[in-house]
């Protein structure tokens, strides 16, 4: 049989024209970036304003840019896979290359697209929604970002240096162990996720502290906007779930680089333990990325229906119920491990139970629209598109929760269709709704509606054309993760249709990007700070918000504070009065978070190739940087009253 051989014994991956293309494009892009920065004399600007920033708004923007770029990268992976599968017995990609691509597709989409996207939204919206000037630990926030960034760099580097991981995004042992998967690819996976995971745990702690300790006076927990509530639920999940992943990754890494036997076949290793630990993180992870989308939909649906959210208390409690129950469903990812009747029954019923609070949320969103006035702006379009998609995905999810039925659907394209329906229809649609919704707040201009609608329809039609046939393919017995399939199984036509759908989504992405570029130049400027007639505090600020967010911290009396004040015609109460302005305490920028990221990158790279001198040097630098930070006593400063008054006057708020 033809099994091609990509060589990854040398440092650079060779043997495939696609890879040379990637090498060339990476070099060209890097040269281009360096040239532009030098030509326009922007190096200093980049360093001062961005690389050393601790401002949550800028960190949010950097997360956002990274997430969109990673969506592009992993989306390209997806299109390559769909091209390979469009027809049976194709040789566009060999098995090794295909295996690498589906692995990086999943890994990047979850860790380096969905995660930074939700972190972007947290950073952009949470402090503004709760009336805070920054997060609780701005310096730590910057460290989180740079750990994510350099983790992502490390994984992406594997494509051209050393070879990508190829054991699936779940990286099951023993397949991912050294015996069956030599070479650095799998090490890239383990180290990049470990590095970004540290950042994620820190973000979880950071935002819980921010939300619990830094709300404006009067904002009790039950007066918090629902997006902020969703971030509470998500961060509770993060701080309890990510450590399980960190341990699983660390043990597998020790197996690989130090010859231990935690998850090997021989010498008493327990491969199934890795799978359990992975999913103890993995299922909560689904809700870590989904709950913020729920929060976004709650904000958008109320704003664009001009109506109070229906069942606020039920919305809050359902999110908290989901965040607790989602810890008790992990084994539904492997009902077929032979756990026995009692194990499968428990996890089947627990998985179905999650459907109850989730279903309630759908009803609440719909009854928020009921007796409202629905404005079909881009954020609302994405929200409305989300509901049927999510309901269908939820329906197939209920079927998969029925353990005996899952014996038939497990690892089939039925499953692939299901989780893409949840992760695209749920998470990505939610992120897009948020992108259009908060874009004016972040950048000061509105994304063009016409481009947006074209992108919307390409995405939506493409989505159903791509994934509904995959349900049928599952019923026809097609397994996931096959790099090719024989003709004569009846799978060809549906696969071909599915590929067309994938490319429609690809066009949707390009149109969306085109819309962003168009809007940068021609988009409607947001001069009011409140382009959507919003309800929550962030819309009371100018767009973009000044560096310190609130010149005077507002006092909260109502859940939809801004909306209520507008109803009463008292918007001016949220404008600062000169006599109330005091010096504002802010954190100083710092280069150390960036340098810590570099040091982690060096250490990770060293471990990937077993170059322990480099690894040790990286770890040593991390310790030094942490020590230096502990002896730094002047990490903050005060913005004088004059400067605040000056800024606010320029914004027309005084």
């Amino acid at each position: 049989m033809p099994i091609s051989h990509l060589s990854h014994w040398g440092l650079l991956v060779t043997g495939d024209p696609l890879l040379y293309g990637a090498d060339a494009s990476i070099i060209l892009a890097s040269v281009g970036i360096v040239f532009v920065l030098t030509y326009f004399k922007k190096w200093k600007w980049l360093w001062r304003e961005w690389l050393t920033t601790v401002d949550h708004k800028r960190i949010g923007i950097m997360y956002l840019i990274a997430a969109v770029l990673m969506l592009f990268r992993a989306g390209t992976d997806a299109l390559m896979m769909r091209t390979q599968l469009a027809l049976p017995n194709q040789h566009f990609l060999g098995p090794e290359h295909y295996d690498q691509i589906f692995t990086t597709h999943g890994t990047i989409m979850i860790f380096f697209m969905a995660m930074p996207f939700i972190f972007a939204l947290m950073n952009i919206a949470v402090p503004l929604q709760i009336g805070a000037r920054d997060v609780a630990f701005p310096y730590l926030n910057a460290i989180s970002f740079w750990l994510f960034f350099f983790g992502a760099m490390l994984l992406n580097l594997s494509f051209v240096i050393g070879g990508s991981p190829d054991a699936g995004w779940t990286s099951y042992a023993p397949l991912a162990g050294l015996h069956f998967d030599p070479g650095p690819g799998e090490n890239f996976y383990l180290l990049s996720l470990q590095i970004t995971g540290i950042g994620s745990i820190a973000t979880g702690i950071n935002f819980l502290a921010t939300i619990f300790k830094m709300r404006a006076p009067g904002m009790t927990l039950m007066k918090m906007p629902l997006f902020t509530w969703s971030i509470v639920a998500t961060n509770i999940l993060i701080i309890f779930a990510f450590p399980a992943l960190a341990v699983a990754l660390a043990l597998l890494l020790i197996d690989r680089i130090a010859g231990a036997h935690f998850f090997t076949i021989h010498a008493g290793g327990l491969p199934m333990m890795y799978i359990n630990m992975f999913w103890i993180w993995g299922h909560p992870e689904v809700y870590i990325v989904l709950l913020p989308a729920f929060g976004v939909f709650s904000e958008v649906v109320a704003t664009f229906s001009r109506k109070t959210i229906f069942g606020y208390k039920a919305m809050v409690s359902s999110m908290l119920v989901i965040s607790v129950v989602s810890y008790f469903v992990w084994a539904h990812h492997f009902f077929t491990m032979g756990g026995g009747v009692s194990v499968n029954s428990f996890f089947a019923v627990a998985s179905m139970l999650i459907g109850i609070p989730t279903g309630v949320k759908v009803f609440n969103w719909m009854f928020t629209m009921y007796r409202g006035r629905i404005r079909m702006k881009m954020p609302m379009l994405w929200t409305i598109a989300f509901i049927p998609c999510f309901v269908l995905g939820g329906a197939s999810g209920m079927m998969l929760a029925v353990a005996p039925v899952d014996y038939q659907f497990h690892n089939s394209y039925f499953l692939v269709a299901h989780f893409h329906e949840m992760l695209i229809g749920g998470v990505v649609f939610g992120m897009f709704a948020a992108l259009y919704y908060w874009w004016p707040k972040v950048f000061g201009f509105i994304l063009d509606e016409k481009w947006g609608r074209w992108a919307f329809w390409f995405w939506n039609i493409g989505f159903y054309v791509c994934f509904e046939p995959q349900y049928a393919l599952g019923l026809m017995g097609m397994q996931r993760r096959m790099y090719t399939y024989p003709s004569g199984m009846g799978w060809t036509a549906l696969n071909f249709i599915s590929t067309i759908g994938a490319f429609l989504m690809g066009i949707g992405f390009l149109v969306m990007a085109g819309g962003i570029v168009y809007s940068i130049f021609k988009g409607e400027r947001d001069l009011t700070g409140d382009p959507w007639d919003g309800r929550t505090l962030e819309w009371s600020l100018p767009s973009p918000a000044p560096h310190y967010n609130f010149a005077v911290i507002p006092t909260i009396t109502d859940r939809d504070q801004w909306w209520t004040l507008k109803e009463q015609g008292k918007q001016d109460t949220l404008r600062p009065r000169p006599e109330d302005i005091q010096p504002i305490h802010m954190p100083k920028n710092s280069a150390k978070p960036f340098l810590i990221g570099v040091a982690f990158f060096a250490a990770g790279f060293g471990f990937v190739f077993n170059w322990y001198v480099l690894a040790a040097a990286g770890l040593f630098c991390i310790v030094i940087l942490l020590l230096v930070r502990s002896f730094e006593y002047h990490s903050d400063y005060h913005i004088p009253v004059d400067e605040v008054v000056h800024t606010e006057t320029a914004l027309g708020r005084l």
Partner: protein
Amino acid sequence: MKAGKVRRRTLTYAGLGAAVAIFLTGCGTQFQLLNPAGPVARTELNLFDISIVLILIVIVPVIGLLLYIVYRYRDIPGNTAPYDPHFSDNRVLEFIWWGIPIIIVAILGVVTVRTTISLAQPPGSTSNASPMTIEVTSLDWKWLFQYPGHKLATVNYAEIPVGVPVQFILTSNAPMNSFWVPRLGGQEYTMPGMALRLWLQANQPGDYYGHGANFTGRGFAHTTFHVIAVPMAKYDQWVKHVKTTAPALTLTGYKNLAIPNVVGELTYSSYPANSFYNTVMNDGGRFMPSTMQVETSLHH
């Protein structure tokens, strides 16, 4: 206008009915999951049908209601629909939409647990024949079937008699795979160092497609096998034929099979004593409850 509305509704129901009928009855044998050839796959399909009906009770009204609400309350000049910006609470409505999912999950949960229990038992035999055992070892990238009753072995295909419950005892001598014959029933993992049991049975003769379902690396796409169900008389003939004509699987032959590669179908008239048991023991020796007894009684 009224007639139009009625006709539209009739069309909707007809379309919905057709869709349901397709799912419930199966369409074309290429939809393997909808064309069960044995009691296990049949039970699983029945449960799938029940779950579809229960879920349709929720999702059809939801999608209908969504379309209605979005249409009726859209923000256009002159829309006469009521506007009530503070309507955010209704005890009765909330009881309904907490209640309905709870009832549906309760029903689905009970059916699920019952079926889970029943599928752990051997399926009802149609021929009074006592159940038989086949030991399955997944290798990179092939399937080894050992018949302890006849001491013969095959690679990438298995013959079974129609109407006889077969317990497949599953293990792996390579990274975990999953043993799946869609038309006979759902899959189960093959794990190194463990022996799991999966009951399957074919009620009609046929050549059934089987495939590894859990990713095992480069050759995974080629881990296809066939389960060929034949009437008892023909099965006995096949056994006799294999015993007289096929070569023996030696220890060296077994080691060669374990080398990662892709091979075609192979047949052996015998295999090294206790090789399945030893494979499980070498890698950890964990047995699913009562598979240990099966193994011990077969080999010792």
